[in-house]
């Protein structure tokens, strides 16, 4: 009986595992061959399920399901081909960072299209009746659909294996995933195969979406919820390894399910001690991923070594191309701060008080983006889990207010210190792995913390933390923010406005301090590391140590932004999704790039532009996500150096038009071209 139960749970695990296999196979090969971190893979998965809905609804479950299983993946495959041709192709050879921005934009566009076409409500994908019957064999009772999922996915996986291993196309693709240069050198145009790979990957994801949709349901967040486990699978198995994807997918599915089924089970009773399985559901896979990456960065079945120097494509630092000199920049900065300083009054006079809340959010995110720029723009490290510091900062601040003191200074100090310490630990473990592995390991840490806050009592579980309040002061001397009310010229200066000036002050200070540091000896080393890590090492710098210090600095600043979120008078709750959800890690990368990284002020500008635009657009259209997503895509294609480079791009264009009378065909800077 115990054995039968175990086998039943194992089969449950394999059912989910097979879905991961289908998802990860495409994702892994796309990454391995094309070096593209494709966040939109989850949305292609969802699209599969939605097309299947549209097919089964008129045709009925009995025939419609089978038609959908063939037709929907084909449609999604074609969409994948279109996406590759139109958006991803121009970016080959660029740093994977730009693929994050691009595919993040695609996520927003596709997700919004799904909302528009199919609505936001959760829907049921009906499957043929006979598939939903319970089947009991040897005391193992499961739905026939479980067996169908396992079997069908296994057949497809086997088919993909044959395609990859027994055909000429497959050989070339596999060779490409090991060494693209070599394939190019023997005269094969590997780029042509990319389209095919992307299309097939999209179709496999669509199949996974349909199969899982039939088991669970179809909703607009299904893509978001599978993409992270899919990345875990890919990284565990080894980037670009199909075998790894299969093994990793099944492993993750089974481990997840068994941890769920057997948590709290007593393993052994040793007199005084009882050995039980800890309640680690949700945490286990991320711990597994971190462990594997630390021991074997290339994954269990990965064959590709560490990226060769320069093989990742250059990171494009923002800048104005020397158009503005230092004193002009200084004046512009003063004007910007002055405008921000009078903004609340303008809002009060025009009766738009609400926008003070929006400005507060922008200031918080500006500091968050600044913190990312310190690592990303100045050392070239791309953390995909940066929101862990924002979130931990917010949680730390809320907890300090709930249990110790409500003095904002002490609260923010605690948030900064705790996040800097966290960054030191994460950095010590992860900075030695390079490039995309660093991105993935930070993502794993962030997800680990995200899962952890759901588990712990003291973090309030999924309800989050409530009932804290900040006080402007220290050691019991001061006033609660909520008591601060002043009348200036007949206008009520509420707590939000007091907070606004406080946040503005901290924002300007953070920027000035960060700029000071970047212009000091320490910062100059960071910049040399960004330009050439190898060279920096051989003029005598301990590159790892400098990166780790930059990461600690960045973590501390991000902790400040999270702390500010918690002490803001308009924040009543700190919830997991609001602070630690992976989307925020993507968002902060996006707005740093959008503004122009490596400039410190660019990302802050990006935060203002991004959140401001979001606020304005959402007032006009329900499809604002689509508009913002499209803007990301256009930016990454045409303005890769960010908003701060717009003046120089315009000047360049005007220049060329005047000189040649011809508009330039290629707006990209020459450096944008791939160097591999």
């Amino acid at each position, binding site marked *: *009986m115990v054995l*039968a*139960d175990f086998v*039943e*749970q194992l089969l*449950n*695990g394999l*059912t*989910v595992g097979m879905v991961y296999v289908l998802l990860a196979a495409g994702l892994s090969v796309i990454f391995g061959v094309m070096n593209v971190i494709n966040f939109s893979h989850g949305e292609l998965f969802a699209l599969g399920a939605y097309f299947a809905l549209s097919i089964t609804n008129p045709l009925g479950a009995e025939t419609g399901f089978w038609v959908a299983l063939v037709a929907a993946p084909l449609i999604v495959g074609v969409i994948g081909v279109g996406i590759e041709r139109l958006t991803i192709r121009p970016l080959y050879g660029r740093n994977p960072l730009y693929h994050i921005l691009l595919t993040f934009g695609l996520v927003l566009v596709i997700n919004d299209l799904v*909302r528009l076409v199919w609505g*936001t*409500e*959760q829907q*049921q994908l009906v499957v043929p009746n006979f598939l*939903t*019957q*319970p089947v*009991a064999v040897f005391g193992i*009772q*499961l*739905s*026939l*659909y*479980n067996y169908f999922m396992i079997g069908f996915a296994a057949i497809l996986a086997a088919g993909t294996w044959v395609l990859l291993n027994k055909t000429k196309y497959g050989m070339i693709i596999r060779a490409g995933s090991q060494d693209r240069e070599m394939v190019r050198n023997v005269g094969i145009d590997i780029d042509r195969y990319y389209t095919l790979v992307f299309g097939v990957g999209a179709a496999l994801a669509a199949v996974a979406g349909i199969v899982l949709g039939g*088991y*669970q*349901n179809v*909703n*607009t*967040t*299904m893509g978001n*919820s599978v993409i992270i486990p899919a990345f875990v699978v890919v990284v565990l198995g080894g980037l670009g390894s199909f075998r790894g994807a299969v093994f990793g997918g099944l492993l993750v599915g089974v481990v997840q*399910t*068994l941890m*769920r*089924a057997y948590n709290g089970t007593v393993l052994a009773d040793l007199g005084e001690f009882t050995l039980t399985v800890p309640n680690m559901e*949700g945490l286990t896979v991320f711990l597994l991923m971190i462990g594997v990456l630390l021991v074997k960065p290339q994954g269990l079945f990965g064959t590709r070594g560490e990226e060769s120097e320069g093989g990742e494509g250059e990171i494009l630092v923002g800048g104005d191309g020397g158009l503005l000199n230092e004193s002009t920049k200084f004046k512009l900065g003063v004007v910007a701060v002055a405008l921000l300083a009078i903004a609340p009054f303008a809002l009060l006079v025009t009766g*738009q*008080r*609400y*926008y003070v*809340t929006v400005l507060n*959010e922008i200031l918080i995110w500006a500091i968050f983006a600044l913190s990312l720029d310190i690592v990303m723009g100045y050392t070239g490290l791309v953390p995909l889990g940066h929101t862990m510091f924002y979130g931990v900062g917010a949680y730390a601040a809320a907890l300090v207010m709930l249990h110790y003191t409500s003095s904002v200074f002490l609260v923010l100090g605690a948030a900064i210190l705790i996040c800097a310490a966290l960054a030191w630990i994460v950095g010590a473990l992860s900075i030695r792995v390079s490039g995309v592995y660093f991105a993935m390991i930070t993502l794993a840490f962030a997800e680990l913390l995200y899962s952890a806050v*759901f588990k712990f009592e003291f973090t309030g*579980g*999924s*309800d*989050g933390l*409530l*009932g804290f309040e900040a006080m402007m002061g220290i050691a019991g001397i001061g006033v609660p923010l*909520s008591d601060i009310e002043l009348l200036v010229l007949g206008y009520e200066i509420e707590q939000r406005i007091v907070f606004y000036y406080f946040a503005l002050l901290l924002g300007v200070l953070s920027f000035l301090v960060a700029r000071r540091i970047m212009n000091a000896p320490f910062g100059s080393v960071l910049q040399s590391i960004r330009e050439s890590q190898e060279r920096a090492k051989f003029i005598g710098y301990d590159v790892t140590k400098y990166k780790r210090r930059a990461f600690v600095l960045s973590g501390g600043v991000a902790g400040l932004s999270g702390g500010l979120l918690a002490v803001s*008078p*308009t*924040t*009543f*709750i700190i*919830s997991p*999704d*609001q*602070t630690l959800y992976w989307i925020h890690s993507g968002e902060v990368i996006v707005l740093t790039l959008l503004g122009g990284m490596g400039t410190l002020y660019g990302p802050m500008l990006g935060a203002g532009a991004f959140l401001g635009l979001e606020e304005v657009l959402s007032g006009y259209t329900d499809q604002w996500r689509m508009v913002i997503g499209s803007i990301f895509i256009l930016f990454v294609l045409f303005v890769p150096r960010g908003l701060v480079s717009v003046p120089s791009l315009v000047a360049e264009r005007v220049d060329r038009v005047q000189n040649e009378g011809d508009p330039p065909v290629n707006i990209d800077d020459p450096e944008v071209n791939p160097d591999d």
Partner: protein
Amino acid sequence: MMTEHTDDSADSSVQSDTSRRKFLAAAGATSAFALAGCGDGSSGGTDTVTVASLNPISGNYSSLGPSQVQGARLAVDQINGNDNYDFEFELVEGDTETESGAAQAEAQRVVQQEGAEFVFGAISSSVALALNDFASSSEFVYFPGGAAVPVTGSSCNEWVFRFETNTAQIAEAISAYTVNNLGSNVWFHYADYAYGESVYNRVKSRMQDADSDFNEVGVTTSELGSSNYGSYISQISNSDADTVVLGMTGGDEVNFTNQAADQGLIDEMAVVGPTATFQSIRAGTGANSVGKYGGVRYVPSLETGDNQQFVESYMDAEGSTPDNFARVGYDSIRLMAKGMNEAGSTNPGDVRDALEGGTFQTVLGDITLREGDHQATNPTWMAEIVEGDGDLPAVELLEKVESEDTLPPASELGCDL
């Protein structure tokens, strides 16, 4: 279109004013909407009051949110078309995305930008708890949609009034019936958040009171928004339990029920869900629901209060029968209006004082917003889900708990207003 006004007696609906306190004009009571005097129709003006409805249009509870809004819209239409009210409601809507952070941002928008001083909504109890806090600090009247006890229990405050039936009330209907009639070896499975915990705590404690044979076989929890329940179902199915109680709702309960039916669990034991009778859950599960037991907060067939008039108007407006969330939306908005008439003011402070302890007519009959915790004294039912005429399974009521018997004293639930 509307053949009949469902709300023909806005004034007479106030049955009792024994507990009404006169509003003391304290500092800060300077609302632009304050009406002169406080008598019947002494003001002929048509003030516009901004009322906000914050509902999960996307996220986990996206299948429940839209009918909340539809109920609220219907109420606003009726109030604006009814001469008994001297004011007009303007409804602004927001999407909570079933998530506290997003809800907080939307709440700030509707309160600060749109100027709403009366807010209704949220289905997730976590979200409702977040809005509770906001209501208290920004001083607006809030009618939450979440059912967890703490919303009007340990986290209650003077600005929060709940017409939604809470978990304690439902536990009253299902707990004793379940242990006495369905089986006393009980497994609890709940979603790990405010509502799920609330179900577990209340139902377990009521079951212990009802039958000394009650035996908790096991407890499992899943994350809110989980979609794969296969391993839990296997675990429950392989245990000695004869009954399983589900502390979950919305998409979670739909997924669980469908997967449980496919794995044969519903044939095997009694599956009891406090929200199993929700129309959206029955619709999402179809025949898979048949054989489940559940608590009833509301079904359209009730003959209580002015329910049949509500059902008719709702049918006219939406082309379908209202569900629990529609009636919560509908009466939460009507209660705000009735409170304003009662107070003779649209100032949130005045309205709050008029609502506290007041008894009003609703679709569930005459209910009181208790003085101690502002919880509506709604009746509840135990029911079984049986085959219906069409695809949608029907609800067969088994036992009713009268409105005055559903709630323990407010202090026992952790609130002392």
